[in-house]
């Protein structure tokens, strides 16, 4: 390879790394309230490269959509009919690999958060602070980093 070609190849790999940093994140939203899903969507679609690929209203539908849509991140509520988020998270983690679960929930509870992490989630934020924490949380979990933030101070 000529030195010029080598320089060009190295420049191209450098670009690929930068492009990786702006990598697309494909997100599935799971919450039993369409209004909450709309709010989450509005926040997430403001980020270049992030795409909400689907929505589900309970754990059963979530499992189905994970299989068909293969998202990178599943944003999951805890309290839902038919199958709650904790159960859905366990099953998602059993059946798939490579995707990460972020809980966005009303339950501002260290115990619930521990339960969520034990179920295989990588992130846990509280709905009352979701507008503040959601983007950082999705970014972190999409890079396989843990992100947790409760609202009330812990003892």
């Amino acid at each position, binding site marked *: 390879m000529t030195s010029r070609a080598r320089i060009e190849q190295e420049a191209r790999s450098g670009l690929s790394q930068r492009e990786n940093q702006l990598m697309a994140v494909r997100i599935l939203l799971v919450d*039993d*309230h369409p*209004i*909450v899903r*709309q*709010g989450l969507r509005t926040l997430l679609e403001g980020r270049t490269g992030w795409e909400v690929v689907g929505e589900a209203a309970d754990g059963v539908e979530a499992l189905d959509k994970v299989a068909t849509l293969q998202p990178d991140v599943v944003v999951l509520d805890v309290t839902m009919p038919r199958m709650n988020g904790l159960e859905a998270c366990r099953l998602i983690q059993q059946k798939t690999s490579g995707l990460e679960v972020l809980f966005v929930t009303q339950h501002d*509870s260290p115990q619930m958060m521990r*339960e969520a992490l034990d*179920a295989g989630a990588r992130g846990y934020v509280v709905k009352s602070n979701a507008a*503040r924490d959601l983007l950082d949380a999705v970014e972190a979990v999409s890079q396989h980093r843990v992100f947790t933030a409760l609202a009330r101070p812990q003892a």
Partner: protein
Amino acid sequence: MKLRILLADDHEIVRRGLCALLQKREGWEVCGEASDGREAVEMAKQLKPDVVIVDIGMPYLNGLDTTRQLLQHDPNFKIIVLTITDSDQVIREALDAGARGFVLKSDAARDLVSAVEALQSKRMFFTPRVNDLVLAGFLDKGHAISRNEPPSLPTLTVREREVTQLLAEGKSSKEVASLLNLSTKTVETHRSNIMRKLSLHSIRDLVVYAIKNNIIQIQMPPQLHTPPETTVA
């Protein structure tokens, strides 16, 4: 002229969703957003919205008391209440408070636009379940929903209800005083009057009372899973 809507909900995520839904309608504008009832009352007084959408379960001042205070200030306010529960008691209280729209949060995406349209045309809007109760004569104040209905509750003043909510949220008398611009001594007096009127003996009793009477709302978590014993690798 645009239809101006004030939103009051303590979750910004929900407000984002409601805004996105409502602002799709041409001619509708969300003129303000409040994150608790007290802010909602202040903003409504300043902005004079055409319709106010109020979540029942807000901190500091819940949606029912916000409705009462708004209508005391101006009986022409058109108010839609948003709630996660549709129990008989909540429905009765919302109607008694003067709300003319009642929408379940789970159905807001489907019902809220219709509710705003109805109130704009000086009609009422309730979820189908409430319509059944209305047909059954619920609005006739002489009727109870069932024989198991508790006797009518002692009346707390507006200020006493405010203090009840803040104490049930875990605030000390000093914190309540600061929030309501009262002296601690006055708050203590309200507290004793509340406990005496309601025959309560502890703050725990007060919290139970507040939950039962929709002064504060809680959501029950699902049963937590007991993990299987783990083995150490």
